[in-house]
């Protein structure tokens, strides 16, 4: 009985402690990123490109992929490509984009097999053999997704509520993301 109680206590502690750690780690990572006080996607993007040493492309999710995932990050040997669901509100669009950028900053990734049909459907002009990693904003059970989601929440919720009236000049985001 005592062993069961101990296990239960350990489980409860893990359940309570793990999310707090993710949030705190995320805050720490944002602090380490050293973004200026007033920043936008341009500065965030350049900071990510600088950190990863490779260009970053942001593209709308192909129309033939309906439903989930909302966003997808694909890493090739030359660049990072982020796909974002375009058929949604501006806020959600930005959130998905930041979620994928969170993956990049955390250095997450799932190795894919060469010749993956998903990859070829996303970037027809790309040789699937060059794709090193792919990660979709779909499965939230694993820690990587939780970290990326926390990153997006922390950053965007802070932005939209931190500006006082809950607004920010969002047009720049769409313009940059669709460029």
């Amino acid at each position, binding site marked *: 009985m005592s062993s069961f109680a101990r296990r239960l206590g350990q489980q409860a502690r893990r359940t309570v402690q793990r999310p707090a750690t993710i949030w705190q780690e995320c805050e720490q990572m944002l602090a380490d990123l050293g973004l200026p006080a007033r920043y936008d996607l341009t500065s965030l993007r350049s900071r990510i490109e600088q950190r990863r040493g490779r260009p970053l492309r942001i593209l709308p999710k192909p129309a*033939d992929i*309906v*439903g*989930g*995932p909302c966003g*997808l990050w694909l890493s090739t040997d030359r660049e990072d490509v982020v796909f974002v669901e375009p058929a*949604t509100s501006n806020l959600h669009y930005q959130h998905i984009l930041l979620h994928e950028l969170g993956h990049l900053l955390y250095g997450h990734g799932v190795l894919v097999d060469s010749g993956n049909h998903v990859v070829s459907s996303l970037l027809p002009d790309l040789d699937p053999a060059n794709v090193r990693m792919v990660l979709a904003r779909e499965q939230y059970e694993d820690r990587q997704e939780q970290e990326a989601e926390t990153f997006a*929440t922390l950053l965007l919720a802070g932005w939209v*509520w931190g500006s006082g009236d809950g607004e920010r000049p969002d047009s720049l985001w769409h313009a940059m993301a669709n460029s």
Partner: protein
Amino acid sequence: MVNAELGLAGVLWLLVAYRVWRHIVGVRGRKPVQVTGFLALQAAVMTFDSFPLADRFDAFLTPHASLLVQFICAVAAIALFVQMACEERDLPGQAQRHLRLTFLTIPLLVVGFSFAPVHYRTTKLFYWSDFTQTISEHGWSPFGWMLFFWGVYIGNLSHGIWLCIRYLQSSLREAATRRAALSFRLFIASCLLILLFFFLGAVVIVGRGLGYADSPAMTLLVFAMRNSETVGMMSLLLGAVTINTGISSTLGLVPVWLNLVRLRGLWLDMKQAVPTMQVGASQRRGIGRLFDARLRLYRRLIEIHDGYVTLAPWYPSDDAEVYGGGRAAFPADPVLRQAVSWELARRAKLRGEPATHQSAAPPSMDAQTLQEDIQQLRKAARLRRRAHQLADVVELHTPIAAAVATSHGGGLNGGRSADVLE
């Protein structure tokens, strides 16, 4: 019963004092909170009836311990505020001077109280005057000494309050809003009235000590003294209420909570249809709860949108297929028709039906700002109950399989999950 009430009052006072202290210490540099915190603390200790609990321990501590504690707290509270104010205004000399005065005052107060006979006092309000009057009956020397102790105490408070007035005046010049300016004026008025209270108190003490306790002039002075204190405290309270940032923050949260409530039904629908995970409030430690309500609303919006994107493959392709050529009630309102279609898509997914390859836009697709997003989702949420009823009618009259196109299995692994904040 009395002991329980006193105990409860003591605990409540300690909680209030702790919160005020946390405000003062934790938000250094935020002027309104500093001022409010200081004045609330000062009000608590300056009111001569605020330490009923300490009276209970008179038998165990020094005579009149409650008054001694009150006086020390008053001196310490003002010293604390002066330190912060001088630090903010970069006046180290003034801060040092007042600190030295405080370090001198507190031990002198203890010494002064140790002289006090046990059974001399009539009311707390006239502590010093009754004290001096009683002692003066036994000779002028102790009366002089007590005036000295009293002078040190009042001198300390007056010096601190004078510095506070200077600080408040400079803050008044920089006040960003009219409301802030008004509250600074009220604080200044309060400080001036407290100084007047000290002055009148001094006259009363000396007068009573000299044996003029029953003269009409003394009665008038006591009346003026009491009123200056009462008006001063009211002014303090009004200033605190006017400037209280907590009130504005709380009022600002009302629409957030209303939106949370109004979107709850729609959010629960989405949560039922898509997988969930824990991202949210439990992760936030040490951050104000004020932000948590906004964070919850933000997460709720994102989760609703996640639901729409996930349900898009099940969205009916055609109104005619949904309403079966007029057999079911066809709503004239296009927004309601859209809500019914989303509800049918949700039910189709819950039943595990195969997805179509439709591309459907969520209700707030064209929302560019957060407020627009909230407004449009609220419209959808308002129609939710009606949409459920119409979906029931549609399902009753139309085979739902006909309302969705044939299987396609669109997307990568079907639906994506929604995050749950709670």
